[in-house]
């Protein structure tokens, strides 16, 4: 017997199959474009209303806020493309007892449940996010060097890892509470908190979003890096938090699997 595929190969295979399959449904492109545009529009309206009344929101100018919005949409796109579809599958598996199949495969179960689904059209959000960030950068007339851009990119990767870990941890912990479809709504609500820079939040909220659910590192930090509000060494902190988040989510996953006993029988 030849060796089974490694994780990267499996991920690429899932990506290829999922994408090819989804590309058939071109209507979804337009639907997603509409939704993404609306989402972006409401974000821009909110910013506009705020800056209609004031010039500075807790020390943030409109251009800098735009950067936060851009990163928020970008990471949101990542979530909707790679993470959320898998979480829905996972929840469905638990409810219908088909997680059993995943657990009897000779592949790490966390790997399978994290890569098997993909929603290719949500990459539109990623594109829009990049566009808004670019707009923000010109608006504040920052001049990012190559190093800044690399730092930004790495920060984004950390952000992606962090939100993945948050989502997986939340869904795993809710294994036992059946009918947990609104968990996704709640997570979305929490994610909305990342739309604004955490520095304007009261201490308790800022603390929660930095330590408990480190959205601050996922969104505010990359935005601050690209808008040159902070130094690059914050990147180290982001990397640390991302690693810790991934480690925690791994532990929680293993715990969740041990406790799993199927929704039936």
């Amino acid at each position, binding site marked *: 017997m030849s060796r089974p595929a490694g994780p990267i190969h499996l991920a690429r295979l899932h990506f290829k199959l999922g994408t090819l399959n989804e590309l058939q449904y071109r209507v979804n492109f337009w639907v997603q474009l509409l939704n993404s545009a609306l989402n972006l529009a409401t974000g821009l309206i909110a910013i506009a209303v705020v800056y209609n009344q004031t010039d500075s929101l807790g020390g943030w100018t409109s251009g800098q806020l735009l950067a936060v919005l851009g990163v928020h949409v970008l990471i949101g796109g990542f979530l909707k493309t790679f993470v959320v579809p898998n979480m829905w599958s996972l929840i469905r598996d638990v409810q219908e007892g088909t997680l059993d199949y995943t657990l009897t495969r000779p592949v790490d179960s966390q790997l399978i449940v994290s890569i098997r689904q993909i929603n290719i059209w949500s990459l539109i959000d990623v594109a829009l996010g990049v566009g808004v960030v670019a707009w923000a950068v010109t608006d504040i007339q920052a001049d990012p060097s190559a190093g800044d851009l690399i730092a930004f990119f790495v920060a984004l990767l950390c952000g992606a890892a962090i939100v993945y870990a948050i989502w997986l941890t939340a869904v795993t912990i809710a294994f036992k509470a059946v009918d947990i479809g609104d968990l996704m709504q709640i997570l979305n609500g929490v994610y909305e908190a990342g*739309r604004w820079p955490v520095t304007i939040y009261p201490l308790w909220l800022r603390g929660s979003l930095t330590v408990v659910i480190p959205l601050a590192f996922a969104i505010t930090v990359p935005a601050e890096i690209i808008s040159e509000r902070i130094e690059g060494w914050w990147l180290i902190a982001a990397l640390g938090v991302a690693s810790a988040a991934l480690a925690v989510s791994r532990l929680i996953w293993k715990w969740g699997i041990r406790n799993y006993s199927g929704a039936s029988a």
Partner: protein
Amino acid sequence: MRYYRAGMRIGFQREIQYRVRAFLMLFGFMIEPTIYLVVWTSVADAQGGEIAGLTTGTLAAYYIVWTLVRVYNLAYAPDAWEWRIREGRLNEFLSQPIHPFHRDFTFFAGAKFVWTLAWIPVAVFLTLIFDPVFDWAVINVVGFVIALWGGFIVRFLMLYALGMINFWTTRGSAIFGIFIASELVLSGRLVPLELMPQWISDIAAWLPFKWTFQFPIDTFIGRLSPQEIVSGIGFQAFWSIVLGLVFVLVWNRAIRRYGAVGN
């Protein structure tokens, strides 16, 4: 109707089992208004404590009551119709002597009592943290209770009617997306309509959205005169009737189409 009492009790019992879910939900509901409150309070502070006639205390009151109104806004989502149709669950409902509307409505109505219970600690917590300013009178509380349920009825009917789209297309979620985005901006959910540009609040006056959100909130925190409260409730009744009629009309055609096209 006797069914309503039974239906609501079942809604209550079902929901109380998922206690974790109720708490999580309320916790989640705390986040959105807290964000808005923090943002607008920041702006108000920068402008000397007040924007467009709203003090920080009023804003705090607005968003705290917001959380309860949000709970009462929960209704059967249009997306769920798509699921119902696709999974063939609709057949179960259609073969019952009671119209699915009653079943869905009473379930949500009953569940609201559970959610209200779960809301109390959230409200206490938020009141302690932010410093809300209320302007109370008995008329406010009474009017509020009516407006709260009125808002629920209007929104329930809105979403229910909207859900009928799913009988004609599987792209219902796109329409729903437009709806939600509009509601966010036009109902007072994002921010009191006074803070919006004039043309937006003008449009909002013609639509049912603000009667589901801003109106109940304003009733409680005391920003409306008794006449405004009464006329507001009248508007809620008006929209309930209109949306109810729309629903009934569309429902009949939807079912006919369902029967023709099948699962």
